[in-house]
């Protein structure tokens, strides 16, 4: 696992991928921070956190698209899968490498806190909880992106499908509660069910807890369990291919 992790992490920084990810992420995150916090002169980063996830929707596919599709295309998966390592080690190594790059990005934006210290007194503990939420959201997205990458041989398809799914998730969670209004009346029962479902998949609803400054076990479990599920599914996909 360590070997895979190391190689994957190096690959991010020996090719432009890691730099593009960090650069684009920091660009948009900084834009949001400067306007939302410095512009409005507020130290609360909750608005920042509620919006910054949207950047992930666009940049995380870049981070995850090549993880497995590239290996399959260039046949290097034959090296990994015939090496004396378990499939789960391969998947975890890659997942952790992508997560590390994500963490670097998130940690870079944590510098916003000391910047605010220069001009006010931000609540550090609350803000750190927000950052934790942001990171966990990213971890979930990375796992999902990795899964998509394991399903296809094409990086482009992996990236576009990940982007599509993340975008859909993001839009749906913004749409919570509104479907039932459309369906109000005869289909009310259906609408209520849909509401519940939308609330369930609402990333925003889970993220709010963090942005408010509370560390809630429920959203922590939500993001981690979904990330774990996609890691598990990726392992299954790779192992099943072996049987095909």
């Amino acid at each position, binding site marked *: 696992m360590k070997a895979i992790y190391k190689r994957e992490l190096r690959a991010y920084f020996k*090719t432009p991928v890691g730099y593009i990810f960090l650069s684009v992420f920091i660009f948009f995150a900084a834009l949001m921070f400067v306007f939302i916090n410095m512009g409005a002169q507020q130290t609360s980063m909750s608005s920042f956190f509620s919006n910054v996830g949207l950047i992930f929707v666009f940049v995380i596919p870049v981070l995850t698209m090549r993880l497995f599709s590239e290996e399959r295309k260039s*046949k290097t998966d*034959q090296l990994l*899968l015939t090496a*004396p390592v*378990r499939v789960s080690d391969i998947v975890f190594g890659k997942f952790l490498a992508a997560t590390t790059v994500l963490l670097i990005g998130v940690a870079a934006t944590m510098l916003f806190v000391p910047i605010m210290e220069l001009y006010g007194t931000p609540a550090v503990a609350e803000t750190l909880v927000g950052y934790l939420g942001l990171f966990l959201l990213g971890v979930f997205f990375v796992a999902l992106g990795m899964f998509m990458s394991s399903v296809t041989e094409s990086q482009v398809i992996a990236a576009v499908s990940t982007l599509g799914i993340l975008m859909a998730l993001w839009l749906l969670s913004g749409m919570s509660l509104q479907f039932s209004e459309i369906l109000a009346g005869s289909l009310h029962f259906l609408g209520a069910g849909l509401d519940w479902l939308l609330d369930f998949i609402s990333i925003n609803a889970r993220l709010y807890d963090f942005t408010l400054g509370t560390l809630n076990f429920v959203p922590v479990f939500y993001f981690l369990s979904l990330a774990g599920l996609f890691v598990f599914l990726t392992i299954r996909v790779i192992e099943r291919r072996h049987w095909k």
Partner: protein
Amino acid sequence: MVEIRNLTKKYGNQLAVDNISFTVKKGEILGFLGPNGAGKSTTMNILTGYLSATDGTVLIDGYDVLDNPVLAKKKIGYLPEHPPLYLDMTVREYLDFVYDLKQVKEDREEHLSKICETVKITDVADRLIGNLSKGYKQRVGLAQAMAGNPEVLILDEPTVGLDPKQIIEIRSVIKKLGREHTVILSSHILQEVNAVCERLVIINKGRLVAGDTPENLGKSISNENKFQLRVAGDERSILDVLEKIGGIKYIKSLGRKEAGSIDFIIEAEPHVDVRASIFNALAEAKLPMLSLQTVDLSLEDIFLEVTKNQGKKEIADISEDEIEIVNQPKEKEDGAAEELAAQKEKIAEGADEDESDLQA
């Protein structure tokens, strides 16, 4: 060392590998021979645990690849048909990674530089794999397989796509490796495996068709009585002359390859040397013989030989076709003849390649 029992692999309803069994002893170099699409790569992928069999068992030094994948894989070095190279890494970085991946216990520096020397890639160690020539890439692939000194080396078509010089070099490397390792080497070229292997296993359409030492196989498949002939003159008159010679099994026109001459493939009856009679007959008819050489046995020829006894129908059909051409040469247009010639050439390509290789 490697034991394969009743190996079967199905893709959907298609049988890719059909009930193959053979064993490879420790220190043996085994040639795994078969035409493209015969199931060689599938079998090798199963041996190395990349794919799993639909049925059957693979034991590597007693460990089942399916039940004890990590232990079994530890004993294998695999060079797949397409070397699994990360083009954006340097050779050194790549081998470092493989060293870590295989959890090699030996001293890193010493081990890797020894491998680099063996496959002669020391001078490109700091270059990006993507920028290397095909031959170098293949050698890096081989180096990767050698990392960790696995007891079994499985090499899938290690010389495909290389130039003759590279083929010779890789071949000598493999021979050298064979002293310390058990090697399974696949190829679709007989000469390739003949040159390095102690034993051959031949498969076609997923089935094992023969398995023996090259000598034994060679005895049963003699190719001494098949020639390629180039004669100046027009095709009709040459054929008239040749058809009268006794002891010739069949004649096949390959068409014009050099201005004013026609090439033929001639096969004599077993144990009859017809070379002198041909020379004399042509000289008599004042048709100058420009060249006469024995034809190397192509894999198709071997299949013809080894499967003849099994009464494979498809192969018999092809032979009839060929005879037909000989019998009705008048009706054939020149263009059609050329086309056929081109086809035949393709079939003989493997042999040609090897030939030029030997010349080099």
